[in-house]
């Protein structure tokens, strides 16, 4: 009832652990898959090791979560063994997230990470937390987004999803550009903002990076709208990510056009059991409304 396909990759259910949450080690990814995720995404890796920003890197506020982890990772060489551990211990598809500061390096990272045989490679071109270091993300410009997509595609035979930013005037245009460049799918969206929280008793911004990407319930309407726009613009499948905490949220995202739904900050609100719970709640909705497959729901919010 819940199984779906992302460019030929079969998922038992549409929930996907989003990149950046509980994805540092292979063991953690196995744990999440064992808790019911249909697929898992490993934390974004770069060619070189990065320590990331000092703490605080994560906080919650009234309406959501904010983070500026700073893309900490052990480097693509070291992540291979983590991903291999995952592949040996879980059947749920693995999405390996990569990022780089230069277009060329995206290609090298894609080639290298393909050795671990992930089911999908996700090109993260939309992290808002390293602007001071990298400048505006590639996802802000259709030409640059397409260039990265082309380079990644050229360096791997594995399906490539491109993760887009909500912080653009026209996400549909960016989606079109990466589809034309050969992307097999789109993950929409990365965190919004960035925003800032100031601790008024300390008189300083709370995050060490001062600003951070916003996720969780606060951005759900933005994410739904972005997925809606992307669905209008392209034919390739979408992993709709942003603010999903319940099965009804997931249904909403699928109605906007998503094939799968990313869950990240939702783990904070409902624990790692969230994947199983969201699935149960989707089934409940489908039974109440006489749907027998997710295909019947996908994109129905479109049209008149």
């Amino acid at each position, binding site marked *: 009832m819940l199984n779906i396909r992302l460019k030929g990759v079969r998922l038992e259910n549409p929930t996907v652990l989003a990149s950046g949450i509980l994805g540092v080690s292979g063991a953690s990814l196995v*744990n999440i898959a064992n808790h019911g995720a249909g697929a898992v995404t490993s934390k974004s890796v770069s060619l070189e090791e990065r320590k990331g920003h000092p703490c605080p890197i994560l906080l919650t*506020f009234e309406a959501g979560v904010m983070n500026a982890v700073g893309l900490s*990772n052990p480097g693509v060489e070291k992540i291979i063994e983590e991903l291999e551990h995952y592949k040996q211990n879980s059947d749920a598809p693995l999405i390996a997230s990569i990022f780089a500061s230069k277009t060329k390096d995206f290609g090298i990272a894609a080639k290298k990470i393909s050795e671990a045989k992930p089911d999908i490679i996700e090109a993260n071109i939309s992290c808002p937390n390293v602007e001071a270091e990298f400048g505006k993300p590639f996802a802000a410009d259709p030409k640059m987004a397409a260039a990265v997509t082309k380079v990644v595609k050229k360096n791997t035979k594995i399906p490539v999803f491109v993760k887009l930013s909500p912080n653009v005037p026209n996400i549909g245009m960016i989606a079109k550009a990466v589809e034309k460049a050969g992307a097999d799918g789109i993950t929409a969206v990365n965190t919004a903002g960035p925003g800032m929280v100031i*601790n008024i008793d*300390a008189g300083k911004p709370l995050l060490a990076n001062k600003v951070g990407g916003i996720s969780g319930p606060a951005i759900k309407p933005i994410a739904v709208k972005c997925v809606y726009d992307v669905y209008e613009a392209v034919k390739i499948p979408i992993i709709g990510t942003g603010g999903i905490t319940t099965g009804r949220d997931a249904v909403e995202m699928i109605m906007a056009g998503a094939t799968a739904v990313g869950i990240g900050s939702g*783990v904070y609100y409902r624990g790692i059991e969230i994947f199983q719970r969201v699935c149960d709640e989707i089934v409940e909705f489908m039974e109440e409304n006489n749907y027998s497959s997710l295909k019947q729901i996908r994109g129905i919010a479109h049209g008149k």
Partner: protein
Amino acid sequence: MENEQPIMLKIENIVEEANDLKSFVFEYNLNAKPGQFIIAWLPRIDEKPFGVAFQAKNKFAITVSKVGKFTKKMHKLEVGDKIGIRGPYGNGFNIKGRRIALVAGGYGAAPLAFLADEAHKKGIIVDFIIGAKTKALLPYIERMKKAGITTHICTDDGSCGIKGFTTDVLKKILKENKIDMVYTCGPEIMMKFVIDICDAHNIPCEISLERYMKCGFGICGQCCVDPTGWRICKDGPVFAKQQAKQITEFAKYKRDASGKKVKL
């Protein structure tokens, strides 16, 4: 639900526990269980986790060992200065039995001192075994004495208590007494020995683990252990010995701030 953000608390008192080891006392109803931890924030510098070392009505303390950049800054703070505190986090120890033994190595003594207080208040007989390299590095001795808790001191150089290891004292106590439960916190190699000894005596045991932590509330994934993927900050930091044995990286390696494995 409260936000995961630190609140700024004034340092009410600073206690010199031992060489380069200070306790910072705050007036605040933390309502923590022994074994739980807080995360301390120095604005524009960093955040680090610390086990709760002491708790009384409307008061708690953390003990900070001067080991790096963050803790050096902490040691420069004075009474009246403010720092950010969030928590408590983690699961904490399960306090049970009629008589228990606590095995503390170095600054691993902090959560066990709090546990000793709480168990003692409940009428449980406590044997507090504490070990350090030398006398000048031993915290909480006076505090334990004042509370009426039996304390067994070991130093590597024999400058205080017996010359030898905490594990030797534990063996002796287990041989001579009926102990219901053992708790330990300290170097992982020591905790591993403690588990072996408890296995030999068929006594349950809980350990407290430490890993590089970032968020503290179970979503960043930095402190997950192999091969179970348990989050030290949320599923731990306290584990029963049966669980500890499933953690294959225990006493072998950990991951650093980037996620790279480093040998212990």
